[in-house]
C-alpha cells in the first residue's frame, strides 16, 4: 500500500474517534445552514429568479457550498507552524516520504472524513427543508468532479504557502485564518458573485478564489455550461501550476531555515 494512501486512511480513522465532537459540530453547522437557507428563501420571497439565478438553484447552492466547506478541510497551515515550534518537523524529514506530499495526504484523509461524517448527515438533514440539489445542464454537470478535485488543490496550495511563512516567523499565529476568510468570502461561497456588481465580478476572475466554491457549484448546477465550464477547468489548472511553482520555490528556501533546538 502506498505510504500516502496509508497516511490518508489514518486520518479517516482518526476522525471516527471523536464522535461527540462530530455530533456537536453537526448541530452547530446545521444551525448555520438552516439560517442561510431561510435567509435566501426570505430574500427570494415571491420571486422565481434574480440576477439570472433561480430560487431553487440558490438554495441548492447553499447546501452544496456547505458540503464543499467540509471537503475543503485543510490542516497544513496549523500543523506545519506547530511542528516548527515544537521541533518535530525534523521527524518529518527523516521519514521516507516527501513532507509536502505527506501533509497533502493527511489533509485528503481529513477532508474525506469530514465529508462522510459531517457533510453527508447535514446534506440529509437539509432535505427536510430543500430538495436534493440535482445537477443541471446534463452530462456537463459531470465536469464538476474534476473541477472539484482541481479546486481542492488550489485551496490546499494557498494554505500550504501560508504555512511556509512559519519557517521565517515562528510566532506567526494562525495566519491560515486570513486565508479562511478570503476563501470563504472571495470565492462566492456565501454570496455568489452572480449577485455582485460587474466590476466586482471582473475583479474576482483575476483571483484564484472564485474558481473554488462558485466555479465548482456553477458547473454542477449548469449555470456555467459548455465553453464556460471548460474555461473554468483550464483556469484552475493554470492557478495550480502557478501556486505549485510558488510553493516549490518557497519550499526549497524554507528547508534551509529550519533550526531544531534541543538534544
Amino acid at each position, binding site marked *: 500500500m502506498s505510504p500516502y494512501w496509508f497516511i490518508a486512511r489514518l486520518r479517516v480513522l482518526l476522525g471516527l474517534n471523536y464522535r*461527540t*465532537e462530530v*455530533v*456537536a*459540530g453537526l*448541530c*452547530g*453547522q446545521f*444551525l*448555520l445552514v*438552516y*439560517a442561510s437557507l*431561510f*435567509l435566501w*428563501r*426570505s*430574500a*427570494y420571497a415571491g*420571486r422565481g429568479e*434574480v*440576477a439570472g439565478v433561480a430560487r431553487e438553484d440558490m438554495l441548492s447552492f447553499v447546501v452544496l457550498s456547505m458540503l464543499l466547506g467540509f471537503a475543503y478541510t485543510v490542516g497544513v497551515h496549523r500543523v506545519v507552524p506547530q511542528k516548527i515550534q515544537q521541533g518535530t518537523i525534523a521527524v518529518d524529514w527523516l521519514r521516507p516520504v516527501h513532507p509536502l506530499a505527506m501533509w497533502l495526504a493527511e489533509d485528503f484523509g481529513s477532508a474525506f472524513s469530514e465529508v462522510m461524517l459531517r457533510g453527508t448527515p447535514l446534506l440529509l438533514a437539509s432535505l427536510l427543508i430543500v430538495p436534493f440539489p440535482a445537477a443541471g445542464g446534463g452530462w456537463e454537470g459531470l465536469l464538476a468532479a474534476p473541477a472539484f478535485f482541481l479546486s481542492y488543490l488550489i485551496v490546499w496550495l494557498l494554505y500550504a504557502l501560508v504555512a511556509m511563512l512559519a519557517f521565517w*516567523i515562528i*510566532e*506567526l*499565529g*494562525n*495566519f*491560515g*485564518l*486570513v486565508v*479562511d*476568510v478570503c476563501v470563504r*468570502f472571495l470565492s462566492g461561497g*456565501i*454570496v455568489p458573485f452572480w*449577485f*455582485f*456588481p460587474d466590476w466586482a465580478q471582473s475583479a474576482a476572475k483575476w483571483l484564484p478564489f472564485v474558481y473554488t466554491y462558485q466555479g465548482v457549484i456553477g458547473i454542477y448546477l449548469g449555470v456555467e455550461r459548455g465553453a464556460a465550464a471548460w474555461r473554468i477547468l483550464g483556469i484552475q489548472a493554470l492557478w495550480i501550476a502557478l501556486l505549485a511553482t510558488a510553493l516549490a520555490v518557497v519550499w526549497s528556501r524554507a528547508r534551509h531555515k529550519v533550526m531544531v533546538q534541543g538534544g
Partner: protein
Amino acid sequence: MWDSIRHHLGVGLHSMRMSFQVTLEYPVGYIAWFIMIPAQYFLGIGMLQVMVRSFDSVGGWTFPQLAFLYGLSLLSHGLLVALFIPTWLVERYLVEGAFDRMKLRPLNVYFQFLVRYFNVLGVIDLIPGVTIFVYALAKSGLAWSWENVIALPLVVAGGTLLRAGLYTGVSSIAFWTQRSFSLVGITEHLMRTGTFYPLNIYPLWFGWVLTVLFPVAWIAYFPTKTFLGLDGGLRFPLGAALVTMGIGLCVFAAGIAIFTLGLRRNNSSGS
C-alpha cells in the same frame, strides 16, 4: 463592603494588566487576528449589503436596519469576548485543574474565573461592531430622544450579560460531563443565527426557540425593532432596554447558579 469591592476591583485590574503584558510579549502572533476578525465581520455585513442590493430587502428589512441589528449584536459580542471569554473555557480549566487553585484562594471562585484572563484581542471584535453601528445610527433614522440615549447602553450591557450567562451555563455542563467545548460551539452558532438576521425570516417555532428557550432574540432583534419603530416592535418603558437588561440579569444569574452547582460537585482533576 467597600473594602471588599475595592479588593475585587484591584485583583481584576491586576489580572487585566498581566493579560495585556502576555499579549504584548508575542505581538506578531496576533497580526492574523487583527486582520481576520474585523475582515470577517465587515465581509459579513458586506454580503448582506450585496443581498439587499439585488433583492431590495431581506425579510422586509432595509440595509440600514440590518446594519443596526448586526452592529448592535456585534457590540455585545465584542464586550463578551473582551470581558467574559473564560465563560467558554470551563472544560479547559477543569482539565488543567485550575479550579483547585481558585478554591484555595480567599476570593469568590466565579469572580476569579472571570478575571483569570482578560482577552485583549476582544477589543478587536469591537472595532467592526462600533464601525457598523455608527454607520447604522447615521443611516437608520434613529430618533435621538433621551429615552434612546439611556436605552442603548442598557441594551448593550443587558445583551452582554445574556450572552455571558448562556455561555457560563452551557460551559458549566463540563462539571458533570467533563466536556462542553463542543456545546459552546453550538451556542456560538445559535448566537449568530439569532442575532445577525431578522427573526421573521425563520419559521415561527424557531422564532419561539430563540425568544424563550435560548432568548438570544432579546440581544439585538427585539431592541432593534423597538429603537427603529418597526412593525410589531414592543412597547415597554425605555423600549426593550429594560426587558433586555432584565432577561440578561436573569440569564446571568442562572448561569452563575449552574456554575456554582457544578463547582460543588467538582473534585480535583488529580495530582
